[in-house]
C-alpha cells in the first residue's frame, strides 16, 4: 500500500523551511534541476538511473514585474515572496492579510475571477499548508497564483465575500485538509459524509485506520483487510 505518507522532500519552496516571519525578497529559491537524481529520489523509489538527461533549465526564477512591484509598494511585508515557475507567476502573501490582498487584487488589479482555490500539504514544514489561489483576470488575460502559508489549526481568512465561488472551494479545502476559513458562512464537509474522520488529502492521513474503525463499528470484525 502506498498510503503511508511518503517522505516528502518539498524541494521547491525552500523559503518555507525558514520561519515565515522573515521574508526576504532576495531569498529566491535556488533552482535545483538536477535535484531529482541526487538526494531526493532514492528515498522515495528506486529510480532507474537511466533518467532522461534534463536540460539545465532554470525553472523557478524570482519574479519582479510591475504587478509585484505595485503589490510590494502597497502591502510591503504582506508580500512574502514572488517567483515564477515555468513562466507562471506565483505570489506568496502573509496569511493574515490574505483577505485584504485578495480584495485589492480583485478591484485594483482586475483579477476578477477566482478560478480555483486549493491547498497543498507539506507536513515537514513548520507551516504545513499552502493555500493556493488561482486568479484570472479577464481584462488582462493573465493568471496569478497567490499562496498563503498556514500551520495546522491556523485560521485563514475566508474569501467568500470577495469571490462567492470561494464558498464551495473553501469547504472542499476544509473537507480535504482541515484548514479552517474564518468567516465562512457554512464551513461543513462537502464531498465526504459529515461523520467522516480525518482529512484525506493530508499526507499523514491513513486510509487503513479509517477503514478499520468503520469495519469495527459497522461489521463488528477486527479488520477489513
Amino acid at each position: 500500500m502506498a498510503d503511508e505518507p511518503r517522505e516528502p522532500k518539498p524541494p521547491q519552496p525552500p523559503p518555507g523551511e525558514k520561519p515565515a516571519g522573515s521574508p526576504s525578497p532576495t531569498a529566491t529559491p535556488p533552482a535545483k534541476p538536477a535535484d531529482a537524481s541526487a538526494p531526493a529520489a532514492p528515498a522515495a523509489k528506486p529510480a532507474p538511473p537511466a533518467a532522461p538527461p534534463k536540460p539545465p533549465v532554470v525553472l523557478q526564477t524570482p519574479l519582479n514585474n510591475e504587478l509585484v512591484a505595485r503589490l510590494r509598494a502597497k502591502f510591503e511585508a504582506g508580500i512574502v515572496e514572488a517567483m515564477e515557475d515555468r513562466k507562471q507567476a506565483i505570489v506568496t502573501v502573509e496569511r493574515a492579510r490574505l483577505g485584504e490582498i485578495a480584495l485589492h487584487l480583485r478591484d485594483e488589479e482586475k483579477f476578477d475571477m477566482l478560478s480555483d482555490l486549493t491547498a497543498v500539504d507539506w507536513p515537514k514544514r513548520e507551516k504545513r499548508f499552502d493555500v493556493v489561489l488561482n486568479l484570472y483576470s479577464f481584462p488582462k488575460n493573465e493568471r496569478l497564483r497567490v499562496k498563503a502559508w498556514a500551520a495546522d489549526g491556523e485560521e485563514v481568512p475566508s474569501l467568500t465575500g470577495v469571490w462567492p465561488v470561494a464558498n464551495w472551494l473553501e469547504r472542499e479545502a476544509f473537507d480535504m485538509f482541515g484548514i479552517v476559513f474564518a468567516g465562512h458562512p457554512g464551513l461543513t464537509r462537502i464531498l465526504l459524509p459529515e461523520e467522516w474522520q480525518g482529512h484525506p488529502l493530508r499526507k499523514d492521513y491513513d486510509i487503513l485506520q479509517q477503514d478499520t474503525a468503520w469495519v469495527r463499528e459497522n461489521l463488528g470484525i477486527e479488520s477489513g483487510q
Partner: protein
Amino acid sequence: MEAERETTLSSEATTENKTLLGADELIINMGPQHPSTHGVLRVKLKLDGERVIGSECIIGYLHRGVEKIGENRTYQQFAPYVDRMDYVAAVSNGLGYCEAIEKLLVVEAPPRARVIRTILTELQRIASHLLWLGTHALDIGALTPLFYCMREREEILKIFEKYCGARLTTHAFRIGGLQYEAYDTLEKDVERFCKDFESRVAEYETLLTQNRIWIGRTKGVGILTAEDAIAFGVTGPVLRASGVKWDLRKAAPYAAYDQYKFEIPVGTTGDTYDRYLVRMEEMRQSRLICLQAIENIPAGPILAKVGKVLKPPPGEVYHAIEAPKGELGYYVVSDGTVQPYRVRIRPPSFINLQAFDRMVRGHLVADVVAIIGTIDIVLGEVDR
C-alpha cells in the same frame, strides 16, 4: 416578505413541515435518486407551493478521492483515472492532464500529435454537447432529440473506438504526445461525420429552437448575469451565454487551436435558452475546427522524447483547457519523484453547479430540472 425567507438553507434545521400553505415551507429532496438530476446529485429544495425559495446542493455521493489516488500513482498511471471524472468527455480530461504534465516536464508534444489531439477533443466536445442536448431536452419533456443526439454521438464514439479501442473512457493520449498513430481513414471518417453533422444540427434546431413550448420553458429561466457568472467563477458555455466572450481556446491557446479559425458564440441574457443556443453554435464551430484540422495533419513523430519513467523537475504548474463544461484546470505539484506530490483538478461542473442556487430561486420545480440540465453537470466530475 420574500426577502425574509431567503435565508440560507444550510444554517437552519430542516423541520419537515406539514402543509403546503402557510408560513412553513415544503422541503423536498430531489435526488440522489431522481430521473433528472443527472446522476447522484441531491438537491434540497425549499418550496412555497411549487415555487423554489431556496436550494442546497448536497454532493459527494460519487466521491472517489481522485486527487488522493493521483498522489499514489505515477504520472502515467494516473492518466486513465482522469477519464473517469467527466466520463462523457474523457478525451478532454486526458488532454488537460497530458498537457499539464508536459508543461511540468517542460516538453512539447510534436505538431502531428497536437493536431490529432485537437480533432479528437473537438469531436469529444460535440459528443458531450450532444449528450447534454439530448438529456436536457428529455428533462424538459421532449423525448425524441435524445435519440437523434445518441445517433450522432454513436458516430463519434465509433471514431474513438477505431482510434484507440475504447469508446467512453478512452485514455486516448499519452504524456508527450499520442499513444497510437492515427488509423488510415481517420480523416475520411471525421470528414464524413462533419458533412452529415451540418444537417443534423439543423434537424435538432427544427425540433426545438423555434418551438413555442421550448422557448416558454427556457427563455427567462435561470438567468445568470455576467457579473454573477464571473463572481461565481462560472466558465464554459454557461459563462459565454451570460455575454462574456471568453474561451480558453482563444485566450490561452493549447494543442493546435491557434492554427484554426473559429468563432466564440456568446449569449445576451444568460438564460437557459441562451445557453442552449450557445452550445448549439459551439457544436457547429467544433465541426468547423475539425474540418480545418483534417485538411492538413502534419507528418512526423507523434510522441516527444519523454522517457519511460517520468520524473518532472520539482516545481508546480497550472494548466487549464476549455473542456466542454468549462475551464478544466490541473494544478500539479512535483517533488521530483515519479509520483505527483499533489494533483489538484479544477472541475468545471463543480464550480458551475455552485451558481445553481442563484439561478433557481424564484422559479418553479419544473424549472429546477431545466436549470440542472442547462448547467450541464457530470457528477463524476463534481464529486471526483
